[in-house]
């Protein structure tokens, strides 16, 4: 086809030289045609007609349409490279874009604004302009054009361009999350995936709580602090609220002050969760209960202390007198009275009693 392409190209060039007063555009066009000739287009005139949105003769139209995306791609590619320094995205995405870019790439030759957009190096830009100026393409061309655009869901204006970039980023993140969350690849749809992710995060949180609780239970010092915290929470609630703060609600409410999403776990585990860097040190946990105790007004503080005392009394056999006295003495130095041999057995009994109370 190259043999006829040369002659046709010459005539077409002269034809369009009249139409295009701009030198740059003409040069771009020539570049495009030079490229086309190298590529041995079957019917140059058809390509040229379609390139300028003019209704080609019936034969040319069918040929140009039947030639499909391969030719179109070549045309748009050469046109934009001739028209300026249009950069391409270096990924596979480009192919799909160029596929749809065909009509716009040609319009680029006719439209100075279009060429400027391409020169800016934004590959989506030509498409944005192309929609604003619908071209009167042939029927076959038009359906192809619309079909491609609809299929790809290509952006139309700058807003949808930004939106598309955003959506791409979101779906990228979603894919990443899909890898991260087991079972997420089975569900389809964004909503299902989000559901799965939420469930997974919740289960992980529970797992962390449970594990830290187990560790807390296996460590006497920390177990001691669970009790401490239980009382701390109770005291806080009593201090903040009226007697309507039901005993059954104390533990969850205390946790609610730390993290609304947490469940029926020990508040000590919550503290560990929130301060993972901190150790299980006695000081940290005990001191964390101090503000609550100190914030309690004297009148309000009296109630929890007495409650603590009763709780202690129920496990009196486990506790020595010093410990029992410590509950009564001061809310500020709750556990200073306990001796170092405060056993996890005891604290566990205490905890169990508390649970029963709660």
């Amino acid at each position, binding site marked *: 086809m190259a043999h006829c392409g040369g002659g046709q190209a010459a005539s077409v060039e002269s034809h369009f030289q009249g139409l295009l007063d701009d030198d740059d555009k003409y040069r771009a066009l020539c570049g495009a045609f030079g490229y086309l000739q190298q590529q041995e287009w079957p019917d140059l005139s058809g390509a040229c007609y379609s390139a300028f949105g003019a209704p080609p003769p019936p034969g040319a139209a069918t040929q140009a349409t039947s030639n499909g995306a391969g030719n179109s791609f070549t045309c748009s590619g050469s046109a934009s490279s001739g028209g300026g320094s249009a950069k391409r995205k270096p990924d596979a995405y480009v192919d799909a874009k160029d596929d749809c870019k065909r009509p716009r790439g040609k319009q680029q030759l006719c439209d100075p604004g279009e060429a400027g957009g391409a020169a800016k190096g934004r590959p989506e830009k030509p498409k944005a302009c192309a929609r604003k100026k619908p071209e009167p393409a042939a029927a076959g061309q038009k359906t192809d054009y619309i079909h491609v655009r609809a299929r790809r869901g290509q952006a139309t204006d700058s807003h949808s361009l930004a939106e598309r970039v955003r959506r791409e980023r979101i779906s990228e993140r979603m894919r990443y999350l899909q890898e991260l969350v087991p079972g997420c690849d089975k569900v389809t749809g964004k909503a299902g995936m989000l*559901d799965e992710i939420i469930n997974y995060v919740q289960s*992980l949180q529970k*797992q*962390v709580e449970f594990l830290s609780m*187990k560790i807390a239970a296996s460590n006497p010092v920390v177990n001691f602090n669970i009790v401490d915290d239980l009382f701390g929470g109770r005291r806080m609630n009593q201090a903040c609220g009226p007697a309507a703060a039901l005993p059954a609600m104390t533990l969850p409410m205390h946790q609610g002050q730390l993290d609304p999403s947490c469940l029926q776990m020990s508040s000590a585990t919550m503290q560990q969760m929130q301060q993972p860097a901190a150790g299980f040190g006695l000081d940290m946990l005990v001191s964390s209960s101090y503000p609550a105790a100190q914030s309690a007004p004297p009148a309000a503080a009296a109630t929890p202390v007495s409650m603590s005392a009763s709780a202690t009394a129920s496990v009196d056999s486990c506790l020595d007198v010093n410990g029992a006295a410590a509950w009564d003495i001061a809310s500020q130095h709750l556990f200073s009275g306990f001796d170092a041999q405060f056993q996890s057995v005891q604290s566990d009994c205490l905890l169990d009693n508390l649970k029963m109370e709660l």
Partner: protein
Amino acid sequence: MSSRRSSRGAISEEEINELMSKLQSLLPNSRRRGSSQASTTKLLKETCSYIKSLHREVDDLSDRLSDLMSTMDHNSAEAEIIRGLLRS
């Protein structure tokens, strides 16, 4: 094209927003930001890192627990308590 997308999106957009806010409330720093709706991208990014940190934490705690269990005297009272706790 846009009408089709919007009609399709209208159904799920609401519930997706709902799920997004639910997810945001799960994240540890969601309270710090208050009610301001973070962008979806940012939210998903934070979810990724949060899940990873939770993984790390679970691993860490599991290691610690197994260490504790291994160093513990199996007949001691502590071991009994832990066994009871693990059962519960």
